[in-house]
């Protein structure tokens, strides 16, 4: 066990820090959060800068255009960029963390050549078309239909929901049902949908935070070439699991670093406002400090494990065979990441609840305050990407080996 940087890691950290010190002041001012084209432009410009500096796709394999660095390098990247106040991945999220890795793992040479470089260079934005109004936690219940037309196209009809950046995306990683007769988890296919295809309608979805972070995507007889299919027809569920595992794995690592910063800000506010004298609140903040310290170590542990064995740590009493514990050798995180997601979702909500206490009614009831917006959006964490209830099922069945059923 070693938490310190190796010589290579130290060098990487040093070089990154130096580069950030030069690159960040050159950035344009951050765009208006409601101006989606401006946000896209800003995020893509930052991605291009990373690409030019050799920091794009750190954890992607070299043959996919990435740096092939061990996952620990990516954590250093997240730590250092957060510390320096660099932009987040933003509109590049789905491309860099979902669709790209999926194409890298499952796509043909032609598909990799077509889609991966524009993602790394910040030229094309991807969005995710998985969830549907009647297929949320139960993703395999999706009903969007794709029918081959006999001329090499699929004709796709249906609707998707909870799609981020749909307004400004070029591509959508789309799950469709190609065989409605097959069992639920079969008969699903993964397609790359060009968002400018005729029949695609994007309608922004207003969240309880009052913002339009997500959209609904309606598909009315949209033609998608069969060449846009990644993996075999009807094999999309397996392809999807690869992507979902990425989402449940390291996707929140950067946020943990950010939460540690937020906690420091909160403590500073409490100290200067006098709220620090409230022992109940102070000890609650102390506990959150323990929480985020542990969560960061959990990320490091999971990443170390995944980097070497392709499995998340799963101690306790793993069941016989313990399916879903990650795919050995692939770097794909498995069910152990559910432990992290469960804990982190809750800790994030706790942090924002504590913030409301620190700020008092004056701040907590002000919708214009960043803390209030953050508190509202934190409510999604125990729901999105698999509810906490689903995560507990995964932990119980796949990690602990408890019997399926009720």
């Amino acid at each position: 066990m070693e938490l310190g940087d190796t010589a290579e890691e130290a060098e990487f950290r040093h070089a990154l820090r130096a580069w950030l010190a030069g690159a960040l002041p050159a950035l344009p001012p951050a765009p208006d959060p409601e101006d989606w084209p401006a946000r896209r432009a800003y995020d893509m410009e930052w991605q291009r800068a990373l690409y030019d500096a050799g920091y794009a796709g750190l954890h992607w394999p070299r043959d996919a255009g990435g740096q092939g660095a061990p996952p620990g390098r990516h954590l250093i990247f997240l730590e250092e960029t957060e510390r320096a106040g660099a932009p987040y991945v933003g509109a590049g999220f789905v491309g860099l963390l979902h669709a790209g890795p999926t194409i890298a793992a499952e796509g043909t040479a032609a598909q990799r050549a077509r889609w991966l470089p524009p993602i790394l260079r910040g030229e094309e934005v991807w969005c995710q078309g998985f969830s549907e109004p009647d297929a949320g936690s139960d993703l395999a219940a999706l009903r969007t239909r794709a029918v081959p037309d006999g001329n090499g196209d699929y004709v796709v009809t249906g609707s998707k929901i909870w799609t981020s950046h749909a307004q400004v995306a070029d591509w959508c990683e789309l799950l469709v049902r190609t065989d409605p007769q097959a069992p639920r988890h079969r008969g699903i296919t993964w397609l790359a949908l060009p968002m400018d295809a005729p029949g695609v309608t994007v309608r922004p979805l207003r969240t309880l935070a009052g913002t339009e972070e997500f959209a609904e995507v309606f598909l009315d007889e949209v033609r998608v070439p069969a060449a846009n299919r990644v993996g075999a027809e009807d094999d999309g569920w397996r392809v999807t699991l690869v992507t979902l595992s990425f989402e449940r794995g390291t996707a929140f690592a950067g946020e943990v670093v950010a939460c540690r910063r937020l906690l420091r800000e909160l403590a500073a506010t409490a100290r200067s406002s006098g709220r620090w004298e409230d022992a109940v609140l102070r000890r609650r903040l102390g506990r959150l400090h323990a929480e985020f310290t542990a969560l960061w170590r959990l990320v490091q542990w999971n990443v170390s494990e995944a980097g070497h064995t392709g499995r998340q740590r799963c101690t306790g009493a793993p069941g016989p065979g313990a399916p879903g514990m990650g795919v050995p050798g692939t770097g794909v995180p498995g069910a152990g990441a559910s432990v992290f997601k469960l804990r982190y979702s809750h800790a994030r909500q706790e942090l924002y609840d504590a913030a409301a206490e620190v700020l008092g009614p004056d701040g907590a009831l002000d919708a214009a305050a960043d803390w209030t917006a953050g508190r509202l959006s934190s409510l999604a964490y125990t729901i999105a990407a698999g509810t906490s209830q689903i995560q507990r099922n995964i932990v119980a069945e796949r990690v602990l080996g408890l019997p399926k059923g009720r």
Partner: protein
Amino acid sequence: MDFRLTDDQLALRRGTRELLEGRTGGMPPRGGLDRALWRALGDAGLFALALPEAEGGVGLGLPEAVLVFEEAGRLLLPGPLAASWLAAGRLGVPGAADGTSVVTALDAGDGVPVEHLAAADRLLVLEGGAGAQARLARPEELCAAPVRSVDPLTPLHRVSGRTGAAAVPGAAAVPGADVALLRREGALLTAAQQLGSAGRTVELAVAHARVREQFGQPIGSFQAVKHLCAGMLERVETARSVVYAAALTENEDETAAAKLLADEAAVRGARDCIQVYGGLGFTWEADVHLHLKRAWLRAEQWQNTVTCEESLAAAI
């Protein structure tokens, strides 16, 4: 002892629900404070419930008011209901009883922004402890700036410049009731609204869980969802018992217990309801978030958690 609703109380609750549902369609009124509805409440005698019949009231008491406020909370009726009720009863502010005058309140020192200041006709100012008299001012006398309120149905103003009551030096003392009494009754009526909201979120969650299907069956057939709903009901029923009791005993500790448990039932109920709703609960269109936001607001008004816990501790 007979701790059940009487037939008259059941009829009052039914009548109030019919009146409110008739005018709102059973949904939280998205338009904010509705003065016509306010006058209808006045006409129905709801602000004057506790006034003697000789003074134009109904001659009932806090238990009946609690039932009415619970119904208002169920529908998230926007407006400074507790302050207006206190103004109509204890303080005899003209127009408050018949609903022609809307009265909001500022409690000096609790730091809670004032609700519906722009729409109000009068501002009740509470300052000091037991023995101090409440004061009354015109809303425009308060130096305050609008806040972008977390509750979209409740506009808020933050006192600017001088803090609390000092910001309305011209307010005139109102004889009739001391601020400790007003604070207690205000807390109880607010607890009743929280109780109504909490009860409504159980209904919403249960109704959703019965029809929403995932994995081939209603999500309400899964223990995880069942137990969330059971916990919600447990909190509602526990809060209800002490809210109703506090209306009868008019006891200060019991009121603090009522506020504490009703706040918790409302806030946690709304959060659990969002969880049961899943993605749908995260949308603006579903009403659930309105329950959460109102519950956050009401939990700060008229005694917050810290105040309640400390006063309960002191009373052991």
